[in-house]
C-alpha cells in the first residue's frame, strides 16, 4: 500500500517522462555524442572520439561570422519587438473589450499561419521586383530597387512579425496585474501622459519585457525557416548552417557540434539574463 502510494507520482508522470526521454533527451544526447565523432569524405562518420569538430569551428572565422550574424539578428529582432510590442500591449489593454479581442486576434494572426506561407509572403513584398520596391519606383522615390530580400534586415523584419505576439503576451500578463488607478494617482500628482508611461507603466511592464525578450531572443537565434527562405544561400545563420552540414556536405558530426554550440550559447545567455532579472526584481512585485 505504502509502496504503491510512493510510486504513484512516478506512475502518473510516467507517460510524460517517457515522451520527454524518447523525443528530447535521447536525440540530444546522441547529437552531443555525434559531435565528438570525426568525418572523412570517403569513409563517412568514424567511430572515434575527439574534439576535432569543436577545434575546427572555433578556429575558423567563417563560423564566427555566422554566430555573430545570428546573434545580431536575434538581438535586433528582440529590440524591435520591445519597441513595438510594449506600447502595443499597453494600447491593447486600454481598449474596449470588443475591440481588444478583435485586435488580439490580429496580433496573434502570424502564429496561426504556416511559417512557409508567411515567409513566402514576405519574399513577395521584399523582393527586387516585389510590391514595396515596385511601389516606391512608381512614386519616383527611388530609381533602382532597394535590396531587402536576402539581407539580414529582411530576416529581422519577418522575424519581428512572427515573434511580436510572444512579447505582447508577456507584457500583457505583467501589465494585467497592475492597479490601473496607480496611473490616475500619478496623473493627479502632476505627471504628464509621457511621465505616466515612463515612470509608472514601463517599470511595471519590465518583468514582462524581460521574460518576453528571453523568449523572442532564443526563438530568433534558433529560427530556421525564415532565415532559410529570406536569407537565401549567402546570408547564413547557425540553424541553416547545421542544416547544410547535415544534408549537403553530409558532415553530421560537424553539424552536431555547431548545433551543440548554438544550444549552449543560447542557454548561457538565457540563464544569465534570467539571473539578472531575478536579482533586479525580486521583492518588488507581488
Amino acid at each position, binding site marked *: 500500500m505504502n509502496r504503491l502510494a510512493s510510486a504513484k507520482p512516478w506512475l502518473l508522470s510516467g507517460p510524460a517522462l517517457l515522451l520527454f526521454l524518447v523525443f528530447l533527451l535521447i536525440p540530444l544526447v546522441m547529437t552531443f555524442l555525434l559531435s565528438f565523432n570525426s568525418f572523412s569524405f570517403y569513409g563517412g562518420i568514424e567511430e572515434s572520439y575527439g574534439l576535432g569538430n569543436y577545434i575546427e569551428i572555433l578556429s575558423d572565422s567563417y563560423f564566427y561570422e555566422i554566430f555573430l550574424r545570428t546573434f545580431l539578428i536575434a538581438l535586433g529582432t528582440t529590440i524591435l519587438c520591445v519597441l513595438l510590442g510594449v506600447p502595443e500591449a499597453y494600447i491593447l489593454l486600454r481598449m474596449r473589450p470588443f475591440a481588444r479581442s478583435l485586435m488580439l486576434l490580429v496580433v496573434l494572426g502570424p502564429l496561426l499561419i504556416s511559417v512557409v506561407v508567411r515567409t513566402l509572403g514576405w519574399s513577395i513584398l521584399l523582393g527586387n521586383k516585389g510590391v514595396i520596391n515596385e511601389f516606391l519606383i512608381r512614386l519616383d522615390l527611388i530609381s533602382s530597387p532597394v535590396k531587402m530580400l536576402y539581407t539580414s534586415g529582411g530576416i529581422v523584419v519577418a522575424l519581428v512579425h512572427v515573434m511580436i505576439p510572444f512579447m505582447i503576451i508577456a507584457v500583457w500578463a505583467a501589465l494585467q496585474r497592475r492597479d490601473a488607478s496607480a496611473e490616475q*494617482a500619478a*496623473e493627479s500628482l*502632476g*505627471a504628464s501622459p509621457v511621465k505616466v508611461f515612463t515612470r509608472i507603466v514601463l*517599470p511595471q511592464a519590465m518583468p514582462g519585457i524581460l521574460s518576453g525578450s528571453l523568449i523572442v531572443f532564443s526563438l530568433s537565434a534558433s529560427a530556421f525557416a525564415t532565415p532559410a527562405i529570406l536569407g537565401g544561400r549567402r546570408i547564413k545563420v547557425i540553424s541553416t548552417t547545421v542544416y547544410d552540414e547535415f544534408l549537403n556536405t553530409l558532415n553530421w558530426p560537424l553539424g552536431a557540434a555547431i548545433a551543440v554550440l548554438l544550444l549552449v550559447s543560447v542557454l548561457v545567455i538565457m540563464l544569465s539574463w534570467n539571473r539578472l532579472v531575478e536579482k533586479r526584481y525580486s*521583492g*518588488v512585485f507581488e
Partner: protein
Amino acid sequence: MSFLEIKALTKRFFDMTAVDDFSLSVERGEFVSLLGPSGCGKTTTLQMIAGFEDPSSGSIILNGRNLSKVPARKRGLGIVFQTYALFPHMTVEQNVAFGLEMRGISGDDRRQKIANALDLVKLSHLAKRFPKAMSGGQRQRVALARALVIEPELLLLDEPLSNLDAKLREEMQLELRRIQQDAGVTTLLVTHDQSEAMALSDRIAVMQNGRLMQIGTPFDTYESPKSSFISNFLGKSNCLDARLISTGDDGAKLDVNGIQITGPAVNLLPGKVLISLRPERIDIVDSAEGVLPARVLERIFLGDQWLFRLETTIGNLLVVRRNRGRREAEPGETVHIAWLPEHLRILPQSQENVA
C-alpha cells in the same frame, strides 16, 4: 462664495444619468462625506472633481478657479484611492516623493516635505520599504502621505477604509480625522459606510440615484432624516405606514394600524404618511408605564447591546437596549414598550415629496 462650489453637476452615460443636478458648497477646512449605496453616483461625482471624467454639464469651482477645462494633472488635488494605488516598484519614500518630483521640488526642500508627510502618518521608520512588504493599514497611510505631501487645496478620499478589516478600520477612522485636522485640508470623502461618514465628517451629503437627497451635520441627518431611505440608510430605523389625522401646535395625531399615537407637529397635509422610530429610542418598561404591549420574537446579543425583534399591534419593531448586565426578556415573553412622542419622525409617503 464657498471654497469649493459645485453647481448643477450632471453626468450622463448614453441614456443613463449617473449624477443629476448635483450642487454642493464646501467651506475651507471642512470635512464633507458623500454617502450613498453603490451606484448612487458618488464615485462618478468624485471622478469629475478629480478630472478623470468630464461632466455633461455643471461647474466645479475651487477657490475661485473653474476646474472644468483644467486637466487632472493640473488640478493639484490629493487623491486617495480605494485600492491605495501605490506605485509597486517604488519605496514608500519614492512614492511620497513622486508628486514633489513632478512639481520640480528637489534637494533639502523635498527631503523636508517627505519627512514631514511621513511623520504626519507615523511611517518615518518604514521609508525604505516597498509597498508589497506592508500591511493594509500602512499602505493606506502611505497613500495619504503621498496625497498630502503636495499640499493639495482639496483632498479626495474614495472609500479609503473599505479594504481594511473592522478593527483596523475603526483605528484608521480616528487616525484619518487627526491627520485631516493636523493638515487642515478641505476634504471630500466618498463612502457607502454610514458609520464611517458619521465618525469622520463635519457634514454628510446623502446621495440616491445620482441626486443629493439631504445635507447636514451627522447628528441632524441622523436625527431628522428627510425620507425613509435616509432614515434606513443612516443607522437602523423602524418605518411604519401611518395616517396623519391632524397636526397643530400641540403635536400630531396619527393612526397606525388602528392604534392612535401622537408625534411632533409637522408641516404635512393629513393623509398617508410614514413614521420612523429609532430602535434605541424605544424602551422596554414596566406594564404601568407602557404605551404598547409587545411579544419578543427574537433577541440577539451583540456584546455591548441587545437587539430585539418585537411583535406589536402596530407592526414588528426593532429595539436596541444597552447591555447593563441584567436579565433581559427572552423570546416568547410579553413586555411593554414606550417612547417619547418627540422621538417619532413623520415623513411624507413617497420620496418625491421631499422639498
